[in-house]
């Protein structure tokens, strides 16, 4: 349909970017969402910091407790210390709960808001955006990227925060206990960081290789599964298995490597931390023997030695998630930054007039006054040029005139530009040159909402919505009564088959009406267009095969619908155009012949040939 556009499409098959391009900018923008939830944000931080501080404190309590026990035992002091510890535990539990709760709420609310903004923005994006991006790509931003963001807001943020507090607080306490041993710990930690960084790099480069292998393999699986029946009829099974096995093996090797590095970090960090623990034990014991250190101090210090290295493993784990989430957030913001469909139209519809459905156009004049033009449905194309991409014209110098009650048909081979016409009248795309006049008004001056409310399109690929049959018909006019829904279905010849559905008009349609046949879906979409009672009707015939009986029902339904409206038909079958007032034969974007059926047959041109393609054989 839009070849030029398709070539530009990002197929979305490649691995998605895992690193943000501008982390700082994205973070700042993300933080701006927290300002709606200041309480949660600062409250969350407060409790997380409090909890981590209390946890450091409770480990510090080991020191006096043990010293009390080994030295001169004082029962009163021992009980006091234990009581303080109990109190601290209460603080830890409460602040852990409150901190997590606040963060989770913050995450949910933020993600909720982002989702809402994204959807609202999506509704405002121009059709060209959807034509140039795959659904999968957008869907993935909506689901995976938003999920990832949610996850890291819920967990990574507090994890990183806890880690920072723990490292800073623990170091302070260790310094207080013994600067010398703190130095030893710091050196060991530096070593561990180095190792972690190294493995992290290896892990992420291997992870990228794995992603690529996975993309390659998944692409192959997708393609073969979709074409499995073709594989069967061509005896292609063995060749398919062979190429699959190659990709599968690549994937296996890549994942094994990536995962080895990914998992290895835990035992390495854990055990290096034990090495550090051993050194501290030795050194500490020596200091105790020199009476420079108490056993209680050693107990607390050993505890700190263990807790201070945990954040390194955790942060290095979280960092990847965090980066991936930021990269996702960037994609989300990119969607939000897409420019929306613009509308400078100052001509709006006014009711209580003489036009169709008592409507007319309200034209503001330069002197401040208003001119009223009755809504009729006259359409004029004046030297219209159009291309989806600049330079490649799909339509050239199109001129035509259509009045209410007339049926204008477009015929021509695939790629001649027929379907493009449906995109122009309702301004899904803006023309490059020339003018389209609606009741004498340039459509670029008409408010898009009002413009579209006066026309209905029946598209080639019928799209229905989740809901009942009646809901789907009512989509054309939300306030239609049940009687009007039935009347519209009758007009579209859809009533008969609806009556035979299990629950009639209340039958639920599954996603995109998959439980109806192609023909039935088409009938429903005609009913949906009928109920809107538009001045202009645009019908893009379905290309897929519908059996003759249903085709007859559809064309009868359409004929009834056309009555008293300006109708444009994009014909894919010659049988439906014969009774048109004018037939436009399109070839490479130009109208090469025009006239009614009899005129064109007499001309013995392209139209005649198209028809005679059948006759020639006889």
């Amino acid at each position: 349909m839009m070849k030029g556009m398709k070539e530009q499409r990002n197929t979305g098959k490649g691995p998605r970017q895992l690193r943000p391009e501008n982390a700082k900018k994205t973070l700042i923008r993300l933080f701006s969402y927290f300002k709606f939830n200041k309480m949660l944000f600062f409250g969350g931080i407060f409790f997380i910091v409090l909890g981590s501080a209390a946890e450091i404190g409770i480990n510090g309590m080991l020191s006096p407790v043990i010293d009390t026990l080994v030295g001169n035992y004082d029962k009163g002091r021992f009980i006091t210390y234990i009581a303080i510890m109990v109190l601290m535990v209460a603080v830890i539990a409460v602040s852990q709960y409150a901190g997590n709760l606040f963060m989770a709420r913050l995450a949910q609310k933020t993600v909720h808001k982002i989702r809402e903004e994204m959807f609202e923005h999506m509704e405002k994006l121009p059709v060209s955006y959807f034509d140039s991006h795959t659904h999968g790509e957008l869907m993935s931003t909506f689901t995976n990227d938003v999920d990832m963001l949610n996850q890291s807001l819920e967990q990574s943020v507090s994890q990183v925060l806890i880690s920072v507090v723990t490292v800073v607080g623990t170091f302070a306490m260790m310094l207080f206990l013994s600067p010398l041993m703190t130095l030893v710990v710091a050196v060991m930690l530096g070593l561990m960081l180095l190792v972690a960084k190294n493995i992290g790099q290896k892990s992420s480069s291997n992870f990228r290789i794995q992603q690529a292998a996975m993309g390659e393999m998944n692409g192959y699986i997708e393609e073969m599964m979709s074409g499995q029946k073709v594989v069967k009829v061509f005896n292609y099974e063995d060749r398919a298995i062979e190429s699959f096995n190659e990709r599968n093996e690549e994937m296996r090797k890549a994942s094994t490597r990536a995962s080895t590095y990914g998992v290895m970090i835990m035992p390495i960090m854990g055990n290096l931390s034990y090495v550090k623990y051993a050194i501290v034990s030795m050194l500490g014991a020596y200091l105790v023997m020199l009476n420079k250190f108490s056993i209680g101090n050693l107990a607390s210090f050993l505890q700190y030695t263990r807790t201070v290295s945990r954040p390194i493993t955790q942060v290095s784990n979280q960092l990847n998630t965090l980066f991936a989430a930021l990269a996702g957030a960037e994609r989300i913001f990119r969607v939000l930054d897409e420019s929306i469909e613009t509308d400078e139209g100052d001509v709006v519809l006014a009711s209580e007039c003489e036009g169709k459905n008592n409507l007319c156009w309200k034209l503001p004049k330069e002197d401040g006054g208003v001119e009223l033009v009755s809504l009729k449905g006259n359409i004029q194309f004046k030297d219209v040029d159009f291309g989806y991409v600049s330079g490649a014209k799909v339509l050239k110098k199109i001129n035509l005139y259509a009045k209410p009650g007339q049926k204008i048909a477009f015929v021509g081979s695939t790629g001649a530009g027929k379907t493009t016409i449906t995109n122009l009248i309702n301004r899904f795309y803006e023309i490059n040159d020339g003018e389209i006049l609606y009741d004498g008004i340039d459509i670029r001056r008409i408010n898009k909402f009002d413009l579209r409310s006066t026309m209905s399109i029946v598209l080639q690929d019928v799209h229905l919505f989740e809901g009942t049959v009646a809901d789907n018909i009512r989509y054309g006019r939300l306030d239609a009564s049940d009687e009007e829904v039935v009347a519209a279905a009758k007009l579209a010849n859809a009533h008969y088959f609806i009556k035979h559905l299990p629950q009639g008009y209340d039958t639920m349609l599954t996603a995109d009406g998959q439980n109806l046949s192609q023909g039935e879906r088409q009938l429903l979409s005609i009913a949906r267009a009928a109920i809107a009672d538009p001045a202009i009707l645009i019908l893009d015939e379905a290309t897929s095969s519908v059996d003759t009986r249903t085709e007859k029902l559809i064309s009868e339904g359409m004929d009834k619908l056309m009555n008293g409206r300006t109708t444009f038909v994009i014909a894919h079958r010659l049988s439906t155009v014969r009774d048109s007032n004018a037939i436009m034969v399109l070839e490479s974007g130009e109208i090469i012949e025009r006239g009614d059926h009899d005129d064109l047959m007499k001309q013995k041109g392209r139209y005649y040939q198209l028809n005679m393609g059948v006759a020639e054989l006889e």
Partner: protein
Amino acid sequence: MKKLLPFMKKYMKYAVLCPIMMILEVMADIIIPYLMALIVDVGIAGRDVGYVVKMGIIMIFAALFGMVMGIISSHYGATAGYGFAAEIRKETFKKVQSFSFANLDKFSVSSLITRLTNDCNTLGQVAMMSLRMAVRAPFMMIFALIMALRINAPLASVFMVTIPLTVALIALILTKARPLFIKMQSRVDRVNAVIQENLVGIRVVKSFNRQKYEEMKFKERNDSLRDTALKAISIIIFFMPILTLITYATIIAVLWFGGKQIVAGTMGSGELLSFITYITQILMSLMMLTFFFMQFLRGSASAARIAEVLDTETEIVEIDNPVMSVKDGSISFRDVSFSYPLSSEKALKNINFEIATGETIGIIGSTGSSKSTLIQMIPRLFDVTDGSVAVGGIDVKNYHLETLRDKVAFVLQKNVLFTGTIRENMKWGNENATDEQIINALRQSQAWEFVSSYDDGLDHKVEQGGDNFSGGQKQRLTIARALIKSPKILILDDSTSAVDMTTDAKIQRAFKSELSDITVIIIAQRISSIQHADRIIVMNEGEIESTGSHEELIVNSPIYREIYESQQKGVVGQ
């Protein structure tokens, strides 16, 4: 999950060694706090620097040993886990290749894709986790318990309260949270459904000005998702603080009771310290196990879905010593009846006809008249329920399947091209086809005209599914692909519906003049595509309504006449 275990066979060595290494690592990790206790209680108490250094060095070696074991175990675990996944994926893919059309119809394309991608990956990860976590956690707990008992058995009785309490709490939280998470998932699905609908149907939304309406719909679902998520999360959030609470409560209890023993001189302070370390290790193991169980549940769902594919038996089987060549393109149907699996209704009823080799046959009838079903019996894509189908005088069930399908070229209604070049796609029909043969086939199917207009000709790229071609072009390419097989029978299942009539007529003529020796069967909606066939079969509700030439049927068949008239009115005029 059990059913899939044999796939581990190839990587058995790694699957066995990984947990062993892991256990060794755990042992090293467990011994370290104990050595520390010795340093404090024996070394410091006896003021023995030599002892302290000796124990310290043993600790370092234990840690290094643990690290090496951990690294090896990581590698073995990954090798076994992803090897396991690759084996499953390989077998599953192979299984799908052996599927009949009936099997393929049962599983949808997207469900097969998820099984081969996500489900297999999940299984690999779960296998790796099972080999590591599921071993690490219980052993850690057992060893730590043993150490605690060794150090101070009376004090260890505190675990009799702590462990059951933790397990009970975990169970409680999980059972409470599970239904909420299931509910949350359904809310997520509802939100995604609206997004998907709006992505696909944006033109409808916009042309009916329904943006606000859709926004309202989305808002309602998005709000309900947030509310459910918050409910589910607020339960999960209890988990961590309660576990912390239990851990510290245990530590304080140990300090309390242990403290008294230290004062009494029955316990060393180093022992108390290592005891505290064991407490954290035991409770951490419990948390790890919980996490593992959640992953395992996810894995067993995937395993069930894979097993479903692997357990499916294809009902189309070859006989022993099958016939290896097809004599000619004659076809005969004798008393053929057919019903689809799980359907009681007969899709074909008592079909009888003979087609001589080289004949051109048209088949027409409304949707649901089983035209496609009928011809799928010929290359044995389905097996008849009753009666028999013969090709070249021999029952199709007696043929070597590959031979039969090689000689019966079938152009499917929903046809697909594959990523690659035009030439690569054409070679599906015959791996060894020369450019000349390919061009010839493209000429016959009237595709050469546009293919030759590309600068890169046969090397022109085909995108996935052939989406860079128009419907008509795609159909012409798929017809050429079938012709390259040089078949004895060519079946076109509504394969020219998107081709314009002039081109369609040219294709028909090419068949007549150049492929007069092969049998051609054409299913079509358009009379013009079949009216020049030698004979036309009119199908109605699974039965042959009538057979004959175009002229005969116009007179004899009311169905044919009705179709003809409805399609004629555009051409002849009033």
